[in-house]
């Protein structure tokens, strides 16, 4: 299981890096999907089976489908590739990198400092527990989610009609 975790982690980081640096939107999306699938594998190895499969169903299978769909509908071809290449100058990386570096440092620091929970896969969260939590103590959050989804539905329709 540990080996699987490390393989998935490496694939995830690499594919995310490649996804960010691609100039062709379809290629970037392909790598992004790969990154999400490897994330799901990580979830599975640390015992969150339900979250893992939802990661594939919702993110890799729905949100990314939406992105590919939009890529198909806009379908601007080589013009966007040239535009993207013009945007992705080396200098453009400096700002985000400077801001992301402290975050990475903080993350590494936290990970190295607290090793008490480093044992992987010792708690398995079953789908049933997720359901009990969602429709028990967090029932209002689910209710709010339904309102949010409704707003998204109606809002997207009116934006599309313009």
């Amino acid at each position, binding site marked *: 299981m540990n080996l699987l975790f490390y393989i998935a982690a490496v694939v995830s980081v690499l594919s995310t890096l490649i996804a960010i640096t691609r100039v062709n939107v379809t*290629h970037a999306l392909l790598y992004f999907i790969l990154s999400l699938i490897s994330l799901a594998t990580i979830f599975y190895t640390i015992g969150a089976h339900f979250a893992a499969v939802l990661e594939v169903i919702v993110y*890799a299978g729905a949100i990314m489908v939406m992105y*590919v769909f939009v890529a198909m509908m806009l379908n601007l071809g080589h013009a966007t590739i040239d535009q993207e290449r013009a945007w992705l100058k080396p200098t453009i990386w400096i700002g985000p990198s400077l801001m992301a570096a402290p975050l990475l440092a903080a993350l590494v620091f936290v990970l190295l400092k607290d090793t008490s929970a480093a044992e992987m896969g010792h708690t398995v969260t079953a789908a049933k527990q997720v359901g009990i939590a969602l429709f028990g103590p967090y029932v209002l959050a689910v209710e709010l989610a339904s309102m949010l989804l409704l707003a998204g539905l109606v809002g997207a329709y009116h934006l599309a009609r313009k």
Partner: protein
Amino acid sequence: MFEFVVGSPLNIVLILGAVLVAAALLIWVERRVLGFLNERLGPNRVGPWGIAQSLADVGKLITKEDWVPPFADKLPFIVAPIIVPVVMLLSFAVIPIAPGVGIMDLNIGLLWVLAMAGLGSYSAMLGGLASNNKFSLLGGLRAAGQMISYEVFMGISILGIVILSDSFNLREIVEAQHKHGWFVFPQFIGFIVFVIAGLAETKRWPFDLAEGESEIISGFNTEYSGMKFGLFFVGEYIGMLLLSALIPVLFFGGWYAPFGLELPNAIISGIFWMCAKTGCWIFFFILVRAALVRPRYDQLMNYGWLVMLPLSLLNLLVTGAVVLAQGN
């Protein structure tokens, strides 16, 4: 003798081999049956009754030119046909075939199948997008709209089964049916929605709008030829096989024999009945192909969103209410 344990190397090799051979046979069976239904012979030259036709087809496809159009987007163009057979074969990993026969006993098996079905919709989308051909793009869009819509209905329609069996594990679902009777009776609406959504999800007739050769040449696979087309093609048939195996597992008691007609050996009996039930559904889908005509695209979508979705949600609510009212 062999010891059958879920996930043993023997199981993996046998099931993978059986699925591939069955898919190849299925292509021949369908062409032959359709031939008879259309009052012609169908493929009858290669081997006895033409049974080796698919083998000859593979031999032909594999020696054809591996052509990538110069105007296409190469990476997605090549990845697209690989996706279908891979996700369909991976779905088979959780299908229980008999006691002790199966590749993986995943406790989220049902969700695994749904996740794989979700990933499957990329093949047609990417194929259509990468081909850089008007008709491919239209076919890809049609395929995407159809597959993602019916994926939702398919997912919701089987939740009634999850409620009744209280599990995502396909093996436990089969066992629950052994205890409480086939789920096709209490879940009849869910069953109907599932079969229709499954047909649309595999893009099989009558829902072959993504290919619709009288309208958009061959849809998303217009620019595909040789083995890449072959992968799309065989992926579709593995998908049909998967659907035909899922329906018995979810609604018709899986490997358990109906009417107490068990064979002496539990494993042989299980394999026999599972194959028999799957075969019935395959035959049903071939008959559907021969009998029905293609709907219009707006009819397909509106039927889905305005009939299938409310029906499956209603089915879920009623099932939930009944289960809760029975207090168990």
